[in-house]
């Protein structure tokens, strides 16, 4: 039961580490003035995984490190960097784990091929169930 309440405390997004005394970074909880840039930043933040949480994106997390990462994302988008480049920079440092969207690398291909493969396999399995030619 104690475990449940510890985990529920994380549901309320309290970080695992002790809290620092500093306020959040400037762009952690402010939107960029340009709505298009903010939308790009928001989309990227929803795809980046929080390093100190139990399975949340940095967009959803209250943790300080997540706030600092949101600040990083927004500053770089405002500076004109492309979301893909920011993601690549972070993946270079933390590995593919940090990206909730599986990247284009080899290990992730089965994920993207799976839907098509499953559809084909499924269609093959039911091929005899449906009469495609009249009178066959």
């Amino acid at each position, binding site marked *: 039961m104690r475990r449940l309440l510890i985990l529920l405390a994380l549901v309320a997004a309290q970080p695992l*580490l*002790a*809290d*620092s*005394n*500093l306020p959040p*970074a400037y762009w952690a909880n402010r939107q960029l003035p340009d709505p298009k840039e903010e939308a790009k930043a928001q989309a990227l933040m929803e795809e980046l995984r929080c*390093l*100190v949480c139990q399975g949340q994106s940095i967009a959803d997390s209250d943790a*300080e*490190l997540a706030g*600092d*990462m949101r*600040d*990083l994302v927004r500053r770089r988008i405002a500076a004109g960097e492309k979301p893909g480049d920011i993601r690549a920079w*972070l*993946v*270079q*440092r*933390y*590995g593919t*784990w*940090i990206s909730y969207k599986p990247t284009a690398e080899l290990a992730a291909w089965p994920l993207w091929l799976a839907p098509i493969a499953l559809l084909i396999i499924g269609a093959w*399995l039911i091929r005899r169930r449906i009469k495609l030619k009249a009178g066959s």
Partner: protein
Amino acid sequence: MSRSLRFTPLALLLLIVLALIWRLATPTSTNVPSKLEGKALPNFTLAEAVPSKPTVSAADLATGEPRIVNIFASWCVPCVSEVKVLQELKGRGVAIDGIAVRDKPQDIAEFLARNGNPYERIGSDPQSQVQISLGSSGVPESFIVDGKGVIRYQHIGPIEQSDVPMILAKLEQAR
């Protein structure tokens, strides 16, 4: 229905159960290690953390000799006991630099005054920017950087007394 088709679900179940058994036997760790081991230290310069010590920048770390970069904070509880171990390493001739994450200068100064100061240089990283650029995800963590500025080893969590021989060995390897 063909025989191979009828036995496919069973075969898939076997694979899945094997994977689950493996996972139960080797539990996942919540640490996210940096991928920069073996790569050059990214360029950075930090503001001064305390007036008594110079600040850290990437160039300072490529001195020709391996050094430890310790990422810490005054609000980090395990860092307190780690300072003693770092003092011991310093006593053995190891050069240690510190990066204080999300900290105020007076808090850092107080921390060092209370617990000791094993660092040659200390930089202040108030928004975790350098911490993120190193691929670090918490405090305390330590990086062993060799003489040419390449990261050779990341130690997640405090360096404990029992880790000292291993750290010294890694420093030797980094020469």
